[in-house]
């Protein structure tokens, strides 16, 4: 994997030179004298925790922010980038983490939007289509120019975004957290596309906190911590562990310590669970699963095998069509979310912005979202704002939610990792018997992931039951006491977490032979 580096990097040709960039917001310094040099044909990773200042730096480069001081040179010429339009003219293109595509439009329409080639007074869609096909083939993107964006996968949509940038003539591509919403398969494909780009002389700036991908794709890596540049290193000469500790500023534990525990009584028992997805197609076909006290059960599986529906039924958001769900012996099948919460089930939802938080509410309000009507947060229907604030301050401190004293800020103002911390703080302090965590570390950086993992294991060590549903195989394998594999709406097999290996799991996830002892 490592021999790809350098052979196509032209170290004599710097395409981007950012020197001593300072960006202040009021009294807060987001970028403190950061310098960054990118060469032709190079993949340059910008690594940093959530809120370290990497997005600010890229927004400066893309003309969304003006730097407080510092200079930028593009292709050796000093450049005053005061708008994205200017950046595009200079050959800089940005693919944002959240795509900006018109869903009902076709791929071609999306790509040419805003700069349609004209033929008289009509759009010359044929010429555009040909140019897109040519670009797609050159970089092996396999994009169908006539497909509607709403019909294609997230990975494909991202390629459309990349094509959009290339179509506008970009030679320097900024990819902001490009793998945050991709499956492992799609990530591999993206990395090969990135390689095709650099082979063609393009430069790529990769903003990420995923170390694996940096190792797999980047040539150089600039590490940013609290707005300052820690170092720029050659990726082939460093290790994931070293990158992680330099990013966080301390040693990072990749493996979480678990104390020996024998699973106790069953907490959650599901038998013959059946349910349909939003189209009414049956996706859960008689699923059996038990979670006991003092164990983390990892539910592994490829997305779309019924995990989402399972969790929705368990949390009361969707009605199941058959089977039994028992929580500590009591029937909670098709109960309301409130009743289910009352029976001791809490969850860290998959979509934290949709289900986990009210983004327009303050952090303090979000922290009492299920308990606001109970003592001591309310008395006779009157909110006790003092108590709610104190509660928030305590949790913010205990769970290291940043920025400090953010209790009156809205949840939407926090970074993704800190939003997740708010949810975890809330759910863990609910101290219920069963915690359901769905992709709890999606989009989080190493430091935050370590934090989340520690709390999941803590719950288990406190003799609670934890059901972990995740697409990250590493996460499932390192945390679970028992791994259950879901395939096509049923449990395809299980194995102890201690002797799980990726190969066998992968086979079971793909519906291969089951290893059910």
């Amino acid at each position: 994997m490592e021999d790809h580096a350098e052979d196509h990097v032209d170290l004599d040709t710097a395409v981007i030179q950012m020197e001593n960039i300072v960006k202040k917001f009021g009294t807060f310094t987001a970028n403190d004298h950061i310098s960054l040099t990118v060469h032709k044909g190079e993949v340059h990773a910008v690594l940093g925790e959530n809120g370290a200042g990497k997005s600010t730096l890229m927004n400066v480069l893309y003309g969304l922010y003006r730097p407080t001081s510092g200079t930028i040179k593009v292709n050796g010429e000093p450049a005053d980038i005061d708008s994205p339009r200017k950046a595009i003219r200079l050959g800089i293109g940005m693919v944002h983490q959240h795509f900006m595509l018109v869903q009902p439009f076709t791929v071609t329409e999306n790509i040419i939007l805003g700069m349609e080639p004209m033929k008289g007074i009509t759009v010359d869609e044929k010429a555009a289509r040909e140019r897109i096909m040519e670009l797609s083939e050159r970089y092996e993107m396999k994009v169908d120019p006539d497909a509607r964006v709403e019909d294609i996968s997230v990975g494909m949509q991202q390629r459309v975004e990349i094509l959009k940038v290339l179509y506008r003539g970009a030679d320097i591509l900024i990819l902001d957290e490009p793998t945050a919403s991709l499956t492992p398969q799609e990530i591999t494909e993206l990395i090969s596309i990135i390689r095709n780009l650099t082979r063609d002389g393009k430069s790529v700036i990769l903003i990420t906190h995923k170390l694996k991908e940096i190792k797999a794709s980047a040539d150089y890596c600039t590490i940013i911590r609290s707005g300052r540049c820690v170092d720029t290193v050659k990726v082939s000469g460093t290790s994931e562990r070293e990158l992680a500790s330099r990013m966080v500023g301390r040693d990072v534990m990749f493996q979480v310590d678990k104390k020996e525990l024998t699973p106790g009584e069953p907490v959650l028992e599901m038998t013959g669970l059946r349910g349909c997805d939003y189209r009414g197609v049956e996706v859960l076909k008689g699923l059996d699963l038990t979670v006991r006290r003092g164990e983390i059960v990892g539910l592994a599986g490829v997305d779309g095998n019924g995990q989402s529906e399972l969790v929705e039924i368990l949390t009361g958001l969707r009605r199941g069509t058959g089977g039994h769900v028992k929580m500590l012996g009591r029937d909670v099948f098709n109960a309301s979310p409130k009743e289910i919460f009352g029976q001791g089930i809490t969850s860290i939802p998959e979509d934290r912005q949709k289900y986990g938080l009210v983004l327009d509410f303050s952090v303090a309000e979000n922290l009492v979202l299920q308990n606001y009507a109970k003592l001591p947060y309310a008395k006779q229907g009157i909110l006790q704002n003092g108590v709610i604030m104190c509660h928030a301050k305590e949790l913010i401190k205990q769970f290291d939610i940043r920025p400090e004293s953010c209790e009156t800020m809205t949840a939407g103002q926090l970074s993704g990792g800190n939003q997740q911390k708010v949810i975890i703080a809330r759910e863990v302090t609910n101290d219920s018997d069963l915690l359901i965590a769905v992709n709890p570390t999606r989009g989080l950086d190493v430091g935050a992931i370590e934090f989340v993992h520690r709390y999941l294991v803590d719950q288990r060590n406190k003799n609670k039951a934890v059901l972990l549903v995740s697409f990250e195989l590493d996460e499932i394998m390192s945390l679970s006491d028992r791994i259950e594999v879901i395939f096509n709406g049923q449990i395809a097999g299980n194995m102890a977490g201690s002797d799980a290996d990726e190969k066998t799991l992968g086979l079971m996830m793909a519906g291969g032979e089951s290893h059910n002892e």
Partner: protein
Amino acid sequence: MNKKGILYSNALYTFMAIIVGFCVGAVLLAAAGIDPLEAYGKLFSGIFGNVKCMTWCVVYASPLIFTGLSVAFSFRTGVFNIGAEGQFVAGSLAACAVGVLADAPAPLHALLCISAAVAAGALWAAVAALMKVKRGINEVLSFIMFNWLAFYLSNYVVNLPAMRRTGGGEATKDIAGTALILAPQGLIRLTGCSAVNYGILLAVAAALIIWFIINKTTLGFGLRAVGYNPFAAKYGGINADRAVMTAMSISGALAGLGGAVQTLGMSWRLSQFAGQEGFGFQGITVALIGSSNPIGCIFAGLFYGAMKYGGTKLSLVNAPAEVVDIIMGTIIIFIAVAHIFRNFFVSKFAKEKGGECE
């Protein structure tokens, strides 16, 4: 940005929108060959000229504060009550019916009328809410239809033999004196305004109560949560359907109360409508000018009431009273596009000085 900053900027852009509204009005007046300064002078003196004028402005404002509160409350809880008009009519009708048909001693009779109006307004909204919750029918559509239902129901009831006034006039009999909410004779004589009533006190009290409910109670917390993000609210165990029902009923009750204040305080009877009177729609304007803040609605309602009353004086300079509607409409457009200005100023500010952190 802190809370004060947001409030400040809301007030700032509202103020700017008001100035722009007057400028547009001035252009139109000039185009019609009327001296804008003279017209605005008349408007101003029509509002602040003497105690009587000012009192009338307050009387005009009271029902608007109620419909403004109704709409503002709905905005805060995630529904759009475009049906305040119908709920207002339902409230007026109920208050008028009880005022004409029932018989009770003085304060009790008024109280009965007001209760009937509250119930009618709440019911009128609750039916639409039920349709939304049970069948997913968009509340905007059903509210608009319910506005017309209330309109024709009112005209029907006005013409019933038991209600219709004898001796001509397309209106009901006068409401019994025991049911009116007029201020004591002394105050009427002092101000010279024949309709000075307790409505403004009720309106201010209602605004304070609504502010308290929204910000300080568990009820308000749940309603706001559903308004901002029904998914997370549901996930958190809040019954979203019940919240929508409650929010819309309260919103309807406020509009109905406005109808009672108008009927018992100022009109004393119900006339047959030729067209929708617009108290509910004007409530949307009030809510927008007041930034959906209950306290803001008091001031916005007073502003609209003053403009409405002052506008009647414009005919003295041969200017049409509709100029006021144009000014109010312009204000709303500019409040609606205020965020464009805001982005413009904020980005300019940010670029020059390095503004707020996002």
